[in-house]
C-alpha cells in the first residue's frame, strides 16, 4: 500500500493557500464562498478535499488555478504568490499549466466536436508548441499514462465510455506535465468498478511521477483507498485537516463523523451512527449568527461557546480541527444513543 510521503519538517509546501476569502457576485448578490482557508500541499501527496454541495470545494480549486481571484489572502505556488499576478503575468503563468484542473463532468467539459487527439493536444498548443510530430508523441505518451491506446485518438467524447472520457480529461491535464493536479469529482459519475479504475490510476500517477494530486469529492469513502490526507470543508471553512487513517479512525469534528456515518456501507464498522450526530430537525437550518461556528446550527453538541467561530487548532501531528468541543462531543454522542433512538426524518 501507499504510505504518507515523508515530508521534512518545515519544508515549504508546493502550494500554499494562505487565509483566503472568496466572495462571488457583487452588491446584494455577493456571497462569501470561502472564509479564511489555510491549506498546504506538499510534493508527492494525495489530498482528498471533501464537503457537500455548496461547501466551496470547486471554488477553492478554481481559486488555486487562477480562475477566481481571492478577495483576501493569497495563493503561493513554489514560493511565488500567483494570486497577486495581474494581466500578462497571470496569463503567462496560466499558459505554463503548472497547476492543472480536471473538471467535474467530462461530457460537459470536453468539446464534443474535437477528437481525443485534439483535446489532449490543446494544452500543448496553448503553451505555444508548434512541432506537430512532438505534439503527437506527447499526446500518445499522455494517453498511455492513463491506460488508453491509439485507437481512441480519432474518436470524439460522445463515442467513448464514461470511464474512458474521464481518462481523456486526465490525459489532457497530464500532457503539459503539470506540477500539481487537481481533480474535481473525478469519480462521482461512474459506477463502482470504473470508479476504482480511476482512483487506482490516480494513485499510480502519484507513485510513478511523484505528482501531488488533490482529489475533490463529496464522498468521503471513495477517498479511503487513495488519499494520504483528508481536508473537510463545511460552508467555506476547513473544519478538519489530517492524515486519512487517523481521521477515519477517530474523526475529531462532528461534521466529519456525520459524513462518515452517512455513507452507506456493505459492512458497518464506523465509530458513530448518523442518529447520534444529526440534529433533531433535518433540512436547512437558519444560521444563528454570522460569528457563530459554521456548523453550530446543525451540530447536536453546540453549546454557548460555539457562538464564536473556532479557529483551526492542531490536535496531533499534521492534524488540526476547528471545533471548540473536539474533546467532549465524542462522549456526548455515545451517551445520546439510548435516549434518542432512531430519530426519524420529520
Amino acid at each position, binding site marked *: 500500500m501507499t504510505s504518507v510521503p515523508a515530508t521534512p519538517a518545515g519544508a515549504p509546501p508546493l502550494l500554499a493557500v494562505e487565509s483566503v476569502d472568496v466572495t462571488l457576485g457583487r452588491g446584494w448578490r455577493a456571497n462569501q464562498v470561502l472564509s479564511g482557508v489555510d491549506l498546504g500541499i506538499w510534493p508527492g501527496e494525495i489530498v482528498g478535499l471533501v464537503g457537500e454541495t455548496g461547501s466551496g470545494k470547486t471554488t477553492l480549486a478554481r481559486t488555486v488555478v487562477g480562475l477566481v481571484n481571492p478577495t483576501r489572502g493569497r495563493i503561493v505556488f513554489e514560493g511565488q504568490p500567483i494570486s497577486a499576478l495581474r494581466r500578462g503575468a497571470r496569463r503567462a503563468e496560466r499558459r505554463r499549466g503548472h497547476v492543472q484542473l480536471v473538471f467535474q463532468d467530462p461530457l460537459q467539459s470536453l468539446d464534443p466536436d474535437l477528437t481525443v487527439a485534439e483535446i489532449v493536444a490543446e494544452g500543448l498548443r496553448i503553451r505555444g508548441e508548434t512541432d506537430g510530430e512532438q505534439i503527437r508523441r506527447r499526446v500518445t505518451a499522455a494517453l498511455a499514462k492513463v491506460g488508453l491506446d491509439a485507437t481512441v485518438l480519432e474518436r470524439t467524447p460522445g463515442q467513448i465510455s464514461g470511464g474512458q472520457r474521464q481518462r481523456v480529461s486526465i490525459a489532457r491535464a497530464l500532457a503539459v506535465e503539470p506540477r500539481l493536479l487537481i481533480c474535481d469529482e473525478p469519480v462521482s459519475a461512474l459506477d463502482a468498478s470504473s470508479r476504482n479504475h480511476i482512483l487506482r490510476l490516480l494513485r499510480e500517477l502519484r507513485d510513478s511521477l511523484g505528482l501531488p494530486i488533490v482529489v475533490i469529492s463529496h464522498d468521503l469513502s471513495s477517498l479511503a*483507498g487513495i488519499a494520504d490526507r483528508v481536508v473537510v470543508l463545511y460552508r467555506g471553512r476547513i473544519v478538519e485537516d489530517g492524515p486519512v487513517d487517523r481521521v477515519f479512525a477517530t474523526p475529531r469534528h462532528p461534521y466529519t463523523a456525520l459524513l462518515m456515518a452517512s455513507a*452507506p456501507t456493505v459492512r458497518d464498522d464506523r465509530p458513530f451512527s448518523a442518529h447520534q450526530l444529526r440534529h433533531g430537525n433535518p433540512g436547512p437550518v437558519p444560521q444563528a449568527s454570522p460569528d457563530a461556528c459554521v456548523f453550530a446550527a446543525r451540530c447536536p453538541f453546540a453549546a454557548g461557546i460555539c457562538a464564536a467561530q473556532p479557529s483551526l487548532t492542531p490536535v496531533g501531528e499534521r492534524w488540526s480541527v476547528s471545533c471548540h468541543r473536539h474533546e467532549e462531543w465524542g462522549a456526548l454522542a455515545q451517551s445520546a444513543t439510548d435516549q434518542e433512538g432512531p430519530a426519524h*426524518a420529520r
Partner: protein
Amino acid sequence: MAIDNRKPPPDLLASRSGTGRQATGDDDVLRLDDLHVSVHGGAATAVRGVSLRIRPGEIVGLVGESGSGKTLTCRAALGVLPDGCAVERGTVSFAGLDVTSLSRRGWERLHGSHMGAVFQDPASYLNPVLTVGGQLAEVLRVKLRMTRREARRRALELFEAVGLRQPERVYDQIPAELSGGMLQRVMIAIAISCDPQLLVADEPTTALDVTIQAEVLELLRQLRDERGLAILFVSHDLAVITALCDRIVVFYAGEVVEAGPTGEIAQRPRHPYTQALLRVASVGDFRRRGLEVIAGQPPRVGADITGCRFAPRCPLAVPECAAGPIRSVLAGDQHEVRCVHAARAVTAS
C-alpha cells in the same frame, strides 16, 4: 401523523380501478414473469427473462452496472417504456392482475393511485414555474377529486410526512428555490400522495450528498414501516442497496444472475459477479484497502451470447459456461443463482 394509513385490501383494487379483471389471489404487489424487453424497435433484446416478485411492505433492490437492464425492467413494471422499447414476451402483474397489455388509459388509472415513482433528477419532473405545493395539490385534485381546500390541507400533511420543515413555506416555493434533497422529498410526497401500494424509485439518491442520501433512505424505510408500502429500488451502488433493501436482485447484461434476501447476498454471495460487486463496493468502509476492479467490459446491449453472459469476465469460467443456457438454481432459502458452479454444488448435495 395525520394521514390515513389504512391500506385498501388487495381485492378492492379490481373495483377501484374498474378494470374488471379477475384477481388471481396471491398477495404479490408486483410480479414479473419471464419478462423480455426489446429496444431499438425490436432490433435487440435488452432484458431477457427477468422474473421477480414484491410483496406488500417489502423493499426490493435492483443492482447492476449501467446498461444492465435494471431501469428498463422498472419502466416496464410502471408501463412507461421509452419509445422503441416494448415488452416482447412475459408478463407484468400488479396486485394479481395481468397488466402487460394494459391500454394507456388503464395505466393512467394505476399511476399515482396504485403505483408511484421517483427518479434520479427530481427537478426535471417538476414544472419549474409552478409552486411545488400547487403541483402536489393538482395531483390530489385530479386523482382523488379533492376540492382546492382539501387538496391544500392534504398536501401540507404530506409535506410534513416526508420531513419537509415549514411545509406552509415550501408549499409556495418553486422548484428552483429548493435544494436537491428537498426536491426529492417533494417528489416522494407526490409519489405517495394517493396512497399507492408500490413505489418505484430509480436511483433516487444518486445525485444527492451522502448526508442527504442517508436521510432519504431513512424516509423510504419509514414510509414502508408506517404504510406498508412496497418499494422497488434501483441503484448501481450495492452499498446503498444493502443498507436499505430486504431483498436484492443482481442484474447483469439483461439477466438476473442472483437474487435473495439481503443477508444471504451480502454474506454468502454465490455468483462470481455479485462477489466482484461486493469487493468493489466495499470501498464504502473506511479501512485502507486495495481498489479492486472488475476486469473487462459488459457485453453490448442485445449481444447474442450462448451460456453465461458474465463468463468472459469471470475468474472462475470453465468451458461448460459457454455450452448452453444457464439455469437458475435455488442455492438456499429464496436464494437463486444463475451459475454453473452453484448448479453443480446444488446437484452434488
